[in-house]
């Protein structure tokens, strides 16, 4: 493995992992929002 490849690979891993974690956080937030909307709808229908 050349030094440049190693460097590129290391930085690729660093930013990919951080990016993936933010994506996971975004997904969770979206899921929460979706469920909140559902609850709102269910409550509105009943009242």
């Amino acid at each position: 493995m050349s030094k440049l490849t190693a460097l590129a690979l290391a930085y690729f891993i660093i930013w990919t992992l951080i990016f993936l974690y933010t994506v996971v956080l975004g997904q969770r937030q979206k899921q929460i929002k979706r469920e909140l909307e559902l609850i709102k709808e269910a409550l509105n229908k009943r009242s």
Partner: protein
Amino acid sequence: MVKMERGRVWDYFLGPLAYVVLSVAIYMVFVVAPEEKMMGVVQKIFYFHVSAAWVAFLAFFVVFVGSIMFLIKRDYFWDGISLASAEIGVVFTTIVITTGPIWAKTVWNAWWTWDPKLTTAIIMWFIYLAYVVLRLAAGEEEKTARFAAIFGIIGFLDVPLVFAAGRWWQKTFHPIVFNNPSGGLDPAMKPAFFISLFAFTILYIYLLVKSTRINLMQRELNRLKDMVKEKIYG
């Protein structure tokens, strides 16, 4: 809820700040800092590798503090922080234990060196993975938080002992001394190093705030769900 709304302001501030500081750090590392004579460009892994190790350790310290605070106050805010911090810690430890071997392979031609810091990192990784698994398997919400807090305290107290044991293990059984790169850091590299450290710390705080709020929202949502269920069926 008030606590959360106030937190939003920090979001708008921290996100852009993390972005700017990280950009500056990358500029410093690749443009300003000189190339190391012996190791060449791979040495540039060092800046973010060490910064990630620092953040990982900080994150697990926050888990420790959050766990103690939860057990004292029984406020789920602290549980939310601990969980968020443990997750972020696992992410950054993963960075440490993957970039470490890449660097070691090019410099020392060995993937894994069982250097005590790397050893401690991988054991920390296992401890906090166990923390996350425990949370998935515990059961009710109250028990999850309580057991996780207990394990968060035990796990963190274990880390210094792992490091001590790892150091003596290497001294006795693998007495090959690698030149310690962090010891002889060229003064011209120092600004880049400290800015990387700072940038990752800001990034950690940003992720922590964001993730903690999501955890608290999730809890709030679960409570709401239970209330609705009770109203409809109960």
